[in-house]
């Protein structure tokens, strides 16, 4: 038995290696990305790993592999499952031959996401089982259980993580690594693999038919556990990581209550019934949606239970939970069942003294890096298109362009281009220029571009191409020239893709050539139709890591007039000395040289 201090996502990756998988696929997205990043960095893997172009593709790759009988695993963030929902909703009908596990990482509190949807709803919608591990140890252990379960019931299985599991760390007991357990051997079986109506009809009843046995199996497993507190008439039902906070609060308050931990679905109806029968009052603590709560209410109605059920409103539906929130909910619900000292303990903590709270702190939002190629593109787009122009944007580092007024919309992957065409067709008089990164364009932007060209939109598309999926940790994509495991591959040509979509204006330009950028965007703006400008430059962080070294720049103080043009450009390497009223360049400079091209007084020079 070895204990290791592990990131949740590393523990999940370890769980995959202990499960005898053959194929792993996924699309990066916080907080899921490190699972595949960890796997692909291993030597002598013994199984296949890929970054797919999007989540739908990743899930379909996994389904294909699982249909041959091997075990397949796909990872994505919660909103990625929206993209993959099409295969999910029907693979639930077809079932699977080899184990098929989808890891979906939710982000309660939206630490790095555009919404906080709850994946348990999807699992219920698709009628597939879902595991919602409470601890990092469970997150590792559940993976091999999920594979066995998937094969036993011939169903896809969702394992749902959350940010505090994926990006938490804890000591984890590891198990034995396992080579692929099944050999690939595709056997034709149209009635379960070809979901045309006459076959799918039959499969629907199989899907519904297996729910009861899955529920009963999970009720007897370690994932759904009822701890009955003899002599107590109160209870807590809690799910996933919230059950850990709930346990901590119960123990801190010294409340004697039965405890039902739910970390596997379909919902354990018999345990819920037992809980309701033994309690006068039940508090349900779960993050996000009242998913367990709704089901408990259904069971209560069915058995005519008089038990008082308390859930959302007392427990917030928005944001992640923590010990403090759970403690307050418990004191509010069970004040007659805990000591006065416990009630006191849950009172709001003393405020900080005014000396501290009066300090006005400058905000420190994340920002584009020093030398980031997106910065010059945004600057030029704003200058050329003007402040009344409309700038739909997308998901990636460049969403940070919001700080420079160059991002007007962000909805989901690929939406910038299609929304731009919608705005262009609406009768809106102002010009439209959207921004989208290389990975996002390849994910779901291509369809949108084709659509815009096909329907004769008048708009400009700026593809900010740094040849890597940067925001999530520099994962390679089809434009990078190598695969997830570092094998060379043919990089997709952005220009060729755009030209093949029918775009008649496609211009490639270097992000660090400021003059060329201006010319390209001016021409693009004047073009009647869909114009595409591909702004090329390696991600500054990747360039630094791969040893690209350029001379830094400096300011000739005597030439600087203090106009602040370089400062307003917003690179963290330029600063303004208020005493001398001149700019200077700090040690962070990586030598992109854009500020020197912006300076109207030729005051910035390369230090050779």
């Amino acid at each position: 038995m070895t204990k290791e201090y592990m990131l949740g996502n590393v523990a999940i990756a370890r769980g995959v290696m202990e499960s005898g998988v053959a194929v792993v696929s996924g699309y990066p997205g916080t907080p899921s990305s490190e699972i595949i990043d960890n796997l692909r960095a291993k030597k002598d893997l013994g199984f296949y790993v890929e970054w797919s172009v999007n989540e739908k593709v990743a899930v379909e790759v996994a389904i294909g592999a699982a249909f041959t009988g091997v075990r397949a695993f796909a990872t994505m963030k919660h909103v990625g499952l929206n993209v993959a929902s099409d295969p999910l909703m029907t693979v639930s009908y077809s079932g699977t031959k080899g184990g098929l596990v989808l890891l979906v990482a939710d982000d309660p509190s939206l630490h790095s996401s555009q919404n906080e949807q709850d994946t348990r709803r999807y699992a219920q919608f698709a009628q597939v089982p879902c595991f919602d591990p409470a601890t990092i140890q469970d997150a590792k252990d559940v993976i091999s259980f999920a594979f066995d379960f998937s094969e036993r019931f011939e169903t896809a299985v969702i394992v749902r993580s959350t940010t505090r599991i994926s990006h938490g760390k804890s000591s984890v007991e590891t198990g034995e690594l396992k080579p692929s357990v099944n050999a690939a051997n595709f056997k034709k079986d149209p009635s379960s693999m070809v979901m045309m109506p006459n076959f799918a009809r039959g499969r629907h009843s199989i899907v519904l038919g297996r729910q009861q046995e899955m529920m009963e199996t999970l009720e007897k497993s370690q994932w759904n556990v009822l701890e009955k507190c003899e002599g107590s008439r109160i209870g807590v039902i809690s799910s996933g990581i919230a059950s850990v906070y709930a346990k901590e609060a119960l123990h801190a308050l010294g409340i004697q209550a039965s405890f039902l931990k739910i970390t596997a679905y379909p919902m354990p109806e018999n345990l819920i019934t037992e809980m309701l029968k033994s309690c006068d009052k039940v508090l349900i603590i779960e993050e996000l949606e009242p998913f367990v709560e709704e089901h408990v209410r259904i069971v209560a109605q069915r058995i005519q239970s008089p038990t008082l059920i308390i859930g959302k409103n007392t427990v917030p539906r928005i944001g992640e939970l923590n010990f403090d929130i759970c403690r307050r909910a418990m004191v509010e619900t069970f004040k007659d069942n805990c000591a006065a000292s416990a009630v006191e303990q849950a009172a709001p903590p003393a405020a900080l003294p005014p000396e501290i709270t009066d300090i006005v702190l400058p905000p420190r939002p994340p920002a584009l890096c020093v030398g980031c190629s997106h910065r010059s593109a945004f600057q030029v787009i704003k200058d050329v298109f003007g402040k009344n122009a409309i700038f739909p944007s997308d998901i990636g580092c460049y969403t940070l362009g919001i700080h420079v007024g160059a991002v007007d919309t962000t909805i989901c992957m690929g939406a910038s281009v299609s929304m731009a065409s919608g705005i262009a067709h609406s009768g809106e008089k102002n010009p439209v220029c959207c921004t989208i990164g290389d990975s996002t364009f390849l994910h779901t932007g291509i369809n949108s571009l084709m659509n815009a060209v096909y329907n004769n939109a008048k708009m400009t598309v700026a593809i900010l191409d740094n040849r890597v999926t940067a925001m999530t940790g520099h994962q390679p994509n089809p434009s990078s020239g190598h695969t997830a495991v570092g094998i060379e591959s043919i990089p997709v040509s952005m220009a060729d893709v755009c030209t093949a979509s029918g775009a008649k204006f496609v211009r490639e330009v270097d992000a660090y050539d400021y003059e060329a950028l201006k010319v390209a965007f001016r021409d693009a703006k004047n073009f009647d139709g869909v114009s595409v400008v591909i702004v090329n430059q390696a991600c500054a962080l990747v360039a630094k890591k791969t040893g690209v070294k350029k001379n830094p720049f400096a300011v000739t103080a005597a030439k600087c007039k203090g106009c602040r043009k370089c400062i307003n450009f917003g690179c963290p390497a330029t600063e303004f000395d208020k005493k001398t009223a001149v700019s200077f360049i700090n040690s962070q400079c990586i030598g992109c040289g854009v500020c020197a091209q912006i300076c109207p007084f030729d005051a910035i020079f390369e230090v050779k």
Partner: protein
Amino acid sequence: MSEKMNENIFGSVPNSGKIDVKCDIIICGVGGQGAILASDILGRASVAEDRAVQAAETHGMAQRGGSVENHVRIGSAYGSLIPPRSADIMIALEPIEAVRYARLMKDGAVVIVNTAPIYPFTVTTGKAEYPGIPQMIEALSKIFDVKAFDATEAAAKTGNSQATNVVMIGAASHFIPLKKQTFIDCIKASVPPEFLDINLAAFEAGYNSIQK
């Protein structure tokens, strides 16, 4: 270090490990300063001494030079998030971040502050003012046991200002209920061999910068 859990508890505990000594630590700073490595050293040292440990980290978007906040709970078999006004120790890699996360610290907490500022772009572009550092230290000293020093300079003297995080761990090690040797062993296990000497020197420099 924190108050003891109620003795009168029912049911299982979610995580394994020793929970006899508890210490809740906040590590805060700016994305890129190495807050994750600092939290890794604490976590590995805890596991090496077989103590239960839970941590929560900032990844993703917040790392692009944004404010980062890591929680490390030594001796906790429950969740990773430290409730407001209850952390025992703060390791602040940057002064305004110490003030930003002061709301998590209990009265009398040990607050170790690196006094070297990193100006956010809101300051360098003139949109916001950076508060006076002595004023911040004085304010924090009202209710906390503040240990302030220039850890970036101390790291630079050992050969690499990137080792500021390890200097801060060295300083904090006086107050964390783990053995000094365990920290040193974990640094050996956590940093690439070519940076080992610098990091060990950084740990000692931090250790020697502070009197308990």
